[in-house]
């Protein structure tokens, strides 16, 4: 189903749309306050963008450097070309340790690879331990936002879910009570986990170490209690030097939630004595995107979610309307590279207002890439015949001023004199909720000619 259809369904409940819009706008405003407190914010963005551009231009060398440093520190490094390879690698590691109970902290990559259903089919329990992810997991839904996975759920809905799955008492959606109940439940999961899976926010070529950022402490609770820690990362998570974290960590949390930094920014360099630490480096379409000059910089993304919070369409259509692992503006430029046909409506789910480009901490020109994807979608994905023909004829007419003006005049005549039920028919999507402009007696061309004649 296209974005517009899903968005229309989401908009049937206007109160919920208002609630969703306000919740995310609140985050956007917190981000503004945080950014304005930082001296040199725009310089930070320039540097972050410049570092990422350097990374992409030297990615193979950085990955090899990262690998060799990580191995020196006792970390085991794996490479996966695609989602299937990634899932197989993770499964093999778990099998080796006979691991049946897994705790996982937030990782959009494992969402992208559909790791949970894969492992569950092998009889392995995977518990998502980020509270938002835990909520969508028990609701059997996908995250609707990359930083706030359950932002589409009201507290009352969470209350009901917890009653069903955790046996909590009804609390009218008391967030403190519900969070504490989840804490108790997840504690037992952490204490009994055989292995922990985490994502990676940044991997440092120079040191072979990686950084994981959370507010809840769930990645650390998992990774330090279980015997095995598997960290999964896309190839683009590499940064050259550790000091560059000084730039990225200034930007990440402020852009994401308006906090100056996440509660925990954990630097993993060596496994605990006697434990194992694995890193799985995943391509899954990224090198293809690297080849697309116009869309390459989409790989700068540090997954802060700021473009979602600012996007007036995302806020009013909800993350699920994008039907993609990464929703919102950034998802709309990443997803077409993975499956153009399936995601062909996403580049059109934008007014090209450019707010996403302005908030992006790594300066991805998101709205310009949306425009460019549109040109490709139209060429490569079969378009509705009528739309295609109408637009082609329009283009032809636009190059022929006499005909174009004649048609303009006739159009005005029709709009002025046709009965209302003809003008506001079902075919006129403009007119469902909007009036058409009132038609004046003459257009500007006519007025100008008359004036010159008389003057």
């Amino acid at each position: 189903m296209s974005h517009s259809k899903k968005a229309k369904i989401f908009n049937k409940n206007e109160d919920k749309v208002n609630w969703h819009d306000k919740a995310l706008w609140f985050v956007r405003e917190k981000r503004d306050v945080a950014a304005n407190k930082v001296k040199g914010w725009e310089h930070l963005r320039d540097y972050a963008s410049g570092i990422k551009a350097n990374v992409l231009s030297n990615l193979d060398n950085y990955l090899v450097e990262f690998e060799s440093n990580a191995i020196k520190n006792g970390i085991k490094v794996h490479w996966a070309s695609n989602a299937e390879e990634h899932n197989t690698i993770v499964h093999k590691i778990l099998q080796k340790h006979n691991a049946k109970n897994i705790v996982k902290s937030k990782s959009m990559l494992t969402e992208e690879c559909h790791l949970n259903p894969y492992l569950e089919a092998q009889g392995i329990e995977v518990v998502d331990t980020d509270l938002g992810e835990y909520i969508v997991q028990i609701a059997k839904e996908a995250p609707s936002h990359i930083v706030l996975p359950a932002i589409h759920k009201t507290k009352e809905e969470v209350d009901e879910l917890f009653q069903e799955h955790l046996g909590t008492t009804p609390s009218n959606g008391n967030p403190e009570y519900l969070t504490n109940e989840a804490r108790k439940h997840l504690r037992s999961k952490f204490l009994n986990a055989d292995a922990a899976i985490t994502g990676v926010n940044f991997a440092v070529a120079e040191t072979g170490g990686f950084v994981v950022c959370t507010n809840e402490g769930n990645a650390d609770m998992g990774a330090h209690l279980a015997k095995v820690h598997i960290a999964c990362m896309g190839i683009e998570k590499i940064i050259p030097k550790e000091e560059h974290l000084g730039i990225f960590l200034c930007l990440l949390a402020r852009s994401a939630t308006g906090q100056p930094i996440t509660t925990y920014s954990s630097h993993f360099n060596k496994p605990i004595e006697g434990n194992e630490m694995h890193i799985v480096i995943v391509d899954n379409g990224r090198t293809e995107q690297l080849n697309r000059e116009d869309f390459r910089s989409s790989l700068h993304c540090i997954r802060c979610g700021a473009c979602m919070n600012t996007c007036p369409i995302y806020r009013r259509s909800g993350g699920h309307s994008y039907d993609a692992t990464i929703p919102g503006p950034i998802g709309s430029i990443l997803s077409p590279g993975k499956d153009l046909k399936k995601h062909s409506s996403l580049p059109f789910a934008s007014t090209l207002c450019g707010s996403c480009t302005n908030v992006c901490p790594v300066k991805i020109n998101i709205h310009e890439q949306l425009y460019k994807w549109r040109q490709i979608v139209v060429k490569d994905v079969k378009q509705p015949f009528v739309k295609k023909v109408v637009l082609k004829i329009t283009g032809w007419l636009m190059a022929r001023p006499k005909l174009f003006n004649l048609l303009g005049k006739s159009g005005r005549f029709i709009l002025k004199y046709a009965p209302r039920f003809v003008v506001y028919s079902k075919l006129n999507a403009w007119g469902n909720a909007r009036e058409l402009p009132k038609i004046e007696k003459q257009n500007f061309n006519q007025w100008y000619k008359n004036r010159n004649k008389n003057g």
Partner: protein
Amino acid sequence: MKVGLFIPCYINQLYPNVAIATLELLEKLNVDVYYPLNQTCCGQPLGNSGYESDAKGACQLFVENFKEYDVVVGPSGSCVHHIVEHFDLLPQTEEVKKIRNNTFELCEFIVKVLGKKIEGASFPHKVGLHKSCHGLRGLKLGSCSEKVEPYFSIEEDLLNEVEGLELMSLNRKDECCGFGGTFSVFEEAISVKMGKDKIQDHLDNGVEIITGADHSCLMHLEGLINRNKQPIKVMHIAEILNSSL
């Protein structure tokens, strides 16, 4: 300086008064302005729909129409933005480059090129400014709320020169109105919701007249206002700057 007046197709057909106000305003400012009659469209609707290559003819015609002028001025930020940003699809001849470098949105032209103030305009009303995205973020008619930069607004500066005009501030200073060209019909539900929210922001802040430098956004808002019979009007900024007692 010979100035070519660029009147976007929808303004020509649907909002002749906006075009008239633009012309009169430029004439009041002693600009040597001409209106080439063979204008059609800048090609923006096709480009934004993904049919950019089908708009080449329109773009070429635009260049033909305006190549003899030193400067091109139009009362529509998004159309001007399209010429500046997206005429890269034409071979970049000297003529094309000259046009891309010398096409200006009306307010931008008055402030940046002419360096003139508005004198004698009077409009005793509470006005809300709709900062259209392509003008704001594309042409930089003002600072954007997302960026950490010194505050400025070309449009506000001009409006503040109008006697009696009270500029009201909004809760969301530069949120998109949801027009977005063909977006308004292909994503109708969201487009309408965004427009409704935008109007509500103006109403909540006591605005009587919504103005802006891009009448396509205003057309969308006006369509909603008229359907819902709301106590608020839209006017193009040229109409306000050209108004007198």
